[in-house]
């Protein structure tokens, strides 16, 4: 990354030495895991560039936007509605989490039995290595699991601009009323932050931009039905990860460009792995950059990932927002309806998720499901056993993996994943 960014990082208050170390590890990890893949689509070059500039050019763009008067809002969750943010000419970004960092500092703030995702978010903050969180005018915390909910009480002392959004836990009328009240409150908070009053035209435009981004991802997912798969699961995951960081319009164009290339590949029956390679659906907890451990293990064990049933995947991007309304009320209602369908494991009961897993297995012709539960993530770990049982009753082989961001269990995981792939053959 260019030296020109040093001043920018310094001005953001980042600690340059650990930040350099982080970028080095990230770069090395990307090189080892991504650049060693065979038969990658040429248009993935865009994502190589995005990754190489993830703390550079993208941050510069955000800071330029801020200079021009736009606000930047950071989030940790797919429940934060980007449509509302864009309607107020603000930018929504996913905040850094996906690698262990400054663990000793984090251990002073969070108890041991906290999942890696939360610890990592804190690590990037207290280690002062996340230019995104430092660029944000507003940070949205959301009451999903208990771990996140309680950790925001602690995060509040570390950042000046935390906004906490409450979320329902049941798909009832009362639950929906809560989501509605919270989205209206969020809209007001965004209006206050930006000084922009959100009208129907603005909201429609926001919906349009986000829907197009989702449509591009849907198109990409659809192309992964082909055997041989035209793109690796790792590369498709990367697109789903960058979904949260990139400029939405440019991201949409870039994904569509990849799709054009994949379409040609499919016509020529070209793929990243040979036809007949065992196909895996990955299901469970979200995987933020650079949490590529499990997909990397799977795709170097003779299988290909054909879908992600995850927040960073179809749970996050599944439904479009209905844009047919003409008033702010109608459009807000459409936004609420869209997000209320998200089948996050914080909901009880959560039968839609199992239906979606089965649907995805059929749609992408997966031979088996790998359920990824992040250690100490109670909602998904709790669901993992009933999900496994239900899938096996439908004769869908399932492997439950419970892991974290550390690399110490790679050997053990490799044996389990390889053995699972062997039994799919």
């Amino acid at each position, binding site marked *: 990354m260019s030296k020109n960014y040093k001043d920018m990082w310094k001005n953001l208050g980042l600690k340059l030495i650990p930040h350099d170390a982080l970028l080095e590890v990230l770069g090395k990890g990307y090189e080892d895991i991504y650049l060693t893949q065979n038969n990658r689509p040429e248009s993935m070059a865009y994502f190589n560039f995005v990754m190489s500039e993830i703390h550079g050019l993208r941050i510069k763009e955000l800071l330029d936007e801020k200079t021009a008067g736009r606000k930047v809002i950071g989030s940790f969750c797919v429940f934060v509605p980007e449509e509302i943010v864009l309607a107020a000419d603000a930018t929504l970004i996913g905040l850094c989490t996906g690698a262990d960092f400054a663990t000793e500092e984090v251990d002073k703030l969070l108890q041991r039995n906290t999942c890696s995702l939360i610890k990592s978010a804190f690590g990037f903050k207290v280690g002062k290595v996340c230019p995104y969180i430092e660029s944000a005018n507003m940070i949205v915390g959301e009451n999903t699991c208990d771990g996140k909910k309680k950790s925001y009480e602690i995060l509040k002392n570390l950042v000046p601009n935390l906004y906490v959004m409450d979320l329902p836990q049941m798909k009832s009328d009362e639950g929906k009323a809560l989501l509605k009240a919270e989205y209206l409150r969020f809209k007001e908070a965004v209006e206050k932050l930006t000084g922009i009053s959100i009208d129907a035209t603005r909201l429609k435009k926001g919906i349009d931009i986000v829907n197009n981004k989702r449509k591009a991802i849907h198109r990409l997912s659809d192309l992964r039905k082909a055997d041989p798969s035209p793109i690796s699961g790792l590369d498709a995951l990367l697109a789903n990860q960058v979904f949260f960081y990139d400029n939405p319009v440019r991201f949409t164009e870039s994904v569509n460009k990849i799709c054009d290339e994949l379409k040609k590949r499919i016509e020529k029956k070209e793929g990243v792995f040979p036809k007949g390679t065992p196909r895996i659906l990955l299901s469970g907890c979200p995987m933020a950059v650079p949490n590529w451990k499990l997909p990397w293990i799977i795709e170097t064990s003779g299988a290909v990932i054909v879908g992600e049933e995850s927040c960073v995947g179809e749970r996050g991007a599944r439904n479009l927002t209905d844009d047919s309304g003409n008033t702010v009320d109608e459009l807000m209602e459409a936004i609420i309806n869209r997000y209320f369908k998200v089948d996050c494991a914080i909901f009880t009961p959560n039968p839609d998720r199992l239906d979606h897993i089965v649907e995805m297995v059929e749609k992408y012709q997966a031979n088996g499901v790998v359920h990824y539960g992040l250690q100490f993530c109670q909602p998904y770990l709790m669901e993992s056993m009933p999900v496994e049982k239900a899938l096996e009753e439908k004769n869908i082989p399932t492997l439950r993996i419970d892991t974290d961001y550390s690399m110490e269990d790679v050997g053990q995981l490799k*044996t389990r994943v390889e053995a699972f792939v*062997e039994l799919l053959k």
Partner: protein
Amino acid sequence: MRYAGIDIGSRTIELVVLRDGEIIESRQADSGFDPMTQAKDLLAGVEHDHIIATGYGRHLFELSFDALTVTEIKAYAVGVSALFPGVRTILDIGGQDSKAIAVNDKGKAIKFEMNDRCAAGTGKFMEIMANTLGYSIDEFGKEALKATKDIQISSMCTVFAESEVTSLLARGEKPQEIALGLHRSIVRRAVAMLKRVSIKEAIVFAGGVARNSCMHHLLEEALEKNILVPENPQAMGAFGAALLAGGIC
């Protein structure tokens, strides 16, 4: 044609060579700190046309010897099924991990569970506990069978269990009875794992720990089922790998 299978485990390496389906060579060595040199020594003078590696060292072997690999899970399923055609459930407790494997009527693994990343309830755990009690690994099970009283050991963590054993000894408890308590705690863990996978008969207990007669006895008691143990339970992985090597051509 000679087909070889080599199982490079965390504690030992086994080599089995087949000719016309018959075992013509069966060797074993400690893995030591340089398993590839140990493997090379073990292979010295052994002729084979094809070799397949399994065990935790399989990938290193693959790089050094240009061999194909399979996981221990598949190798055990194939090896045990060949010896016991009716097997439906395999418990394999090795040096550093334990596995419960459900097998279908074709000898194919259909589901499995593995212990988590620590060595609790494995051969290594037993070795350390035996050592704390002053027994050799061979004596450990035999002495436990002589116990007349049950002592509950609650720690499965190797480090905690060791200090628990030390305090039981200090309290004046007999080593034989502590040994029995330790065996029971490993069996409880193994049974829980089996129940998540399958306890369909026939059940075969393999891996190095299957040589321990107390473990065998307690498992049968806990499951109220007859459990079979191969004559050489540690070699099942290498045997399975050799059979798979025979299937290549």
